[in-house]
């Protein structure tokens, strides 16, 4: 194996294909086969948060801790992801690739209709507008540091779900109900977007059964 630590985007692009891209090393790195090489983005200069008006631009290797510091409305969501020690390492870009039931920030970015910046195959950052309203809830097996059973993120218009399908999904039918002001209807309609799975945390049955509960709670800001 080899460990590449490129110090510029150009250098990263030149190395593409010669190993697995890693940033925070919290997700993929510990499970790589013993022979696999890696390309670390840690020193590629992709970190940072810029705010211009209501638009936020986040570099791909910005850590979750940094993002929470700079963008207050996302703090609750970020606090629901892993532990502070992991959040000090895990990156915004990496979270986009975290397999469900992980990737709660990706669920938020979907609800925010965030734009992904790329340079070739490399994700270099994301940008989104700070929403006027923000709803977020994550049901998990323990109060902190646990994967998602159901994650719900919404700006009051778009509704994105985590934990209930192999990818973060938009709940379009639920959004239509929400537009009519029908929160209970939205909660039930969220099921149309769900294609849940069994894992060590919960069964598909349970995720489906409690999805409407958590959508309703998220949209009514109930605990």
């Amino acid at each position, binding site marked *: *194996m080899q460990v590449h630590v490129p110090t510029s985007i150009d250098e990263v692009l030149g190395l593409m294909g010669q190993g697995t891209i890693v940033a925070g090393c919290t997700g993929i790195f510990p499970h790589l*086969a*013993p*022979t696999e090489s890696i390309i670390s983005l840690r020193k590629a200069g992709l970190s940072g948060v810029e705010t211009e008006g209501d638009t936020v631009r986040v570099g791909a290797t910005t850590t979750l801790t940094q993002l929470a510091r700079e963008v207050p409305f996302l703090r609750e969501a970020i606090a629901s992801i892993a532990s502070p020690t992991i959040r000090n390492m895990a990156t915004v870009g990496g979270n986009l690739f975290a397999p469900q039931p992980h990737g709660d920030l990706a669920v938020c970015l979907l609800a925010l209709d965030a734009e992904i910046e790329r340079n070739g195959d490399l994700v270099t950052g994301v940008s989104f507008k700070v929403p006027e309203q923000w709803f977020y809830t994550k049901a998990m097996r323990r109060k902190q540091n646990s994967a998602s059973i159901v994650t719900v993120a919404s700006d009051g218009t778009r509704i994105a779900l985590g934990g209930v399908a192999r990818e973060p999904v938009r709940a379009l039918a639920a959004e239509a109900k929400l537009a009519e002001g029908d929160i209970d209807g939205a909660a039930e309609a969220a099921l149309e977007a769900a294609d849940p799975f069994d894992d060590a945390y919960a069964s598909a049955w349970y995720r489906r059964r409690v999805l409407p509960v958590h959508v309703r709670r998220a949209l009514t800001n109930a605990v």
Partner: protein
Amino acid sequence: MSAPTTEAGGFDVVGKPVQRLDAMGHVTGRTQYFEDYNPAGMLHLKMHRSERHHANLVEVDTSEAEKVKGVVKVLTYKDVPKNWYTILTLINVGYPEEVVLAEKKVLWMGEPIVAVVATSERAALEGAAAVKVTYEDLEPIFDVEEAIKPDAFPLKPHGTNYFEYEGHHCRRVRLGDVEQGFAEADHIFEFKYQSRPIEQAPTETTGCIVEPQHNGRLKIYSDTQACFFTLDNTALILDVPFGKLQVVGGTVGGGFGGKVDVTVEPISCIAAMQTGKPVKYVYDRYEEMQISSPRAAERIYIKDGVMNDGRIIARQCTLYADAGAYSRHSPYAATKAAAHMPGPYTIPNVHIDSWCVYTNRTPSSAMRGFGVTIGDFALETQMDRIARELDMDPLALRLINAYRDGDMKAHHKVAEGTALIEVIQKAADLVGHELPGELRALSSREGR
């Protein structure tokens, strides 16, 4: 949180909250655990494991593993002097029915087949991954009551899927006449309870470092919970005199029963003997979770005959401990479970059948509360159900039936030093649960 209070004992050191001897080492990180030892030239051992629950081994091809750079030794069952063992032979329980490395078949997913020894952990992992095994799948058995059916596929050399206790298919406890008790009872309550396997999950995983000594002996640094137990079993497997081995342990990063099997030391010793170098074999977290033996899943049926006033006059318990593929400590656990029944209650008619059953899952073994934890779950849930059915105070039901000094236990031992009544009375005080005067006046020291 309130600290526990104790009565004064009149001692100088006993009964005092003196500082732990090991705490200074713990808070400074200077406590030495086995893995903190790092001898020069140490080799690393990793295992190629069964990917099937139950299968015949058609072919085991180690040729690719041997070609991996850094691999210095590939070990199969042919390298193990006494490949068949069982750890409780040390106390004359059971017979050799487990293999160090699989020979002709595998009985559980994760069963070790080939050990790969290399100059680095990475090379050992690569080598272990390069072993190719061809399987012929057999139907696995995962349910204890399916496993003991007469037509079930026999997993064990003795031809049944249960441990035999001196001619019986289970450990029996008999007191009085349970059928007579049921006939006389005002109520019969019969319920079923089930648990799933539970991992000891110590923060330090199971492992050892074996270092050959200049005098031909092997020094085993291990996080075993039982140094001599490990030494004796390892010597039997290696077929060497006990005196050839030395086990060094000490402070262990949590055990909870998870470190009383002898799974890492024997093969590490063989690797050290064959290479003449120190060898480290330590479970990764996945192995600790899924390969090291858990607390057995148990299925328990309890049938009670109860009088209108709450006296339990007959209790029949049937317990099935899911031992998984091999015995390890489970035959002992089933006996301990039988002795624990029918709980801390004095019941004149008792009938206990406690089975140790083999299935195609990770062998289970010891864990904190060995043979008792799941039984207590069943017993004390049963007590709550009876109290609810009879519309009785749940503590009153327990106090009426609580064993006292001088009572005969189901396993024919006279009870002494009992204190169930007193802990219940104290707990009632703590939560403001009022007890009637006659129950408040009960004492474990006074016969019924």
